């Protein structure tokens, strides 16, 4: 079977689709990308999914897959990075500087702070860690609305339901109905990393080529344009 099957975190869809199309145009072959939550994909790989490449939205689920012996030796690397931002509806007059002891609770008033699930979704986990580091978590915790994923959190802000939300820079870039209030300091949370690896069950001859292509400058442009950082 020479179809390359890629299991990728859902937030990669835009640029990854473009990269796949470009690769196909150049090298031929067929690429199917299954986008879903990293946890679901990881469990599927553990359950024998016929995937060639796995791109996780955080290190934990890649570790999980590696521990299950599914990562092809020497193929795993930290590929993309992202930054975490605080967003508000585009028409919001709110301004806030993120710093130690920031009064987020006061800023949302009787509204909610929209985040991705703080236990389950990477964006939520990073956000919580950041707020803890900044000493703001205890005050804001009762006002946090945890969404299924970071896109849903974005939707809560975009629809005006929540006055503030914590999402990735990549999401904020593309949503005109929100504006970035401030960026979280990089050292306030573990680095946001999208690891990539080829899997042991990979059979598609071109899988390694595609992995290599993703790291090529040609592809890199696409991801940078979408707001990702390229990790070396």
């Amino acid at each position, binding site marked *: 079977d020479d179809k390359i099957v890629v299991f990728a975190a859902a937030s990669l869809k835009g640029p990854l689709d473009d990269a796949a199309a470009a690769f196909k145009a150049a090298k031929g072959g067929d690429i199917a990308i299954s986008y879903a939550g990293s*946890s679901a994909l*990881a469990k599927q790989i553990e359950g024998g999914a016929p995937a060639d490449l796995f791109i996780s939205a955080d290190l934990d689920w890649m570790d999980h897959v590696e521990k299950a012996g599914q990562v092809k030796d020497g193929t795993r690397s930290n590929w993309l990075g992202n930054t975490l931002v605080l967003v508000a509806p585009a028409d919001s007059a709110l301004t806030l500087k993120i710093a130690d002891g920031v009064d987020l609770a006061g800023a949302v008033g009787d509204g909610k702070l929209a985040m991705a699930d703080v236990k389950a979704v990477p964006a939520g986990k990073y956000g919580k860690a950041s707020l803890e580091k900044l000493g703001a978590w205890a005050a804001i915790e009762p006002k946090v*609305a945890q*969404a299924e994923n970071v896109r*849903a959190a974005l939707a809560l802000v975009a*629809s005006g*339901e929540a006055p503030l939300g914590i999402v990735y820079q990549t999401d904020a870039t593309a949503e005109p109905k929100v504006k970035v209030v401030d960026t979280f300091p990089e050292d306030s949370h573990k680095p946001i990393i999208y690891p990539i690896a080829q899997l042991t069950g990979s059979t598609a001859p071109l899988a390694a080529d595609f992995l290599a292509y993703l790291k090529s400058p040609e592809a890199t442009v696409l991801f940078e344009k979408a707001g990702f950082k390229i990790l070396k």
Partner: protein
Amino acid sequence: MLSFTPEELVAIHLSLKIALVATAASLPFGLLVAWALARRDFWGKTLLNGIVHLPLILPPVVTGYLLLLVMGRKGPVGSILDQWFGIVFAFRWTGAALAAGIMGFPLLVRAIRLSIELVDRRLEQAAVTLGAPPIWVFITVTLPLALPGIIAGIILSFGKALGEFGATITFVSNIPGETQTIPTAIYTYTNVPGGDTAAMRLVVISIVISMAALVLSELLARRVSAKVIGDER
């Protein structure tokens, strides 16, 4: 296994409350719509029928998103409800109940409609000749005879409400103590590496709850059908 964490207790309590309220609140609308679809011909019937089925057909997340757009505090309906009546769904357990009720609505309506359609019209005719106006006939003849279907609809809708996840979390998020139901709690655990045991605990709990509800409903249904259909066993 037998002692619950406070978080679990809250989620269980909330889930039950939401499922009960969702089912109870949607029942009158369900009866009305089922009756209209079963017994009336009106302009827009096909449309109504389609709308009722939408939550079944659309991915729950989409339904949740549409709810957010329409019933959210800034949404066209939500803002009116908020300003005029002070009713807010967003981020409240009431919103979770709304989502659950809507997701179960097609199931509720179908079951009731089906059993209304199977009620012997000759009995309704008999009631009318005894002087009962149509609404009274509906309440005293059609509804009691459709009880097996009403019970079935309630079970389906209650079960759906217990298990509903996608629309709920999209519409009202996952706020422990306010909108975190058993399914959203399960979702959280399954997304944490190694969280499977905790998730399984909750799965077992919701199975137990719904089994209890099922057994109860079956007993009820048996009594009802002994009356209505005359179970000869």
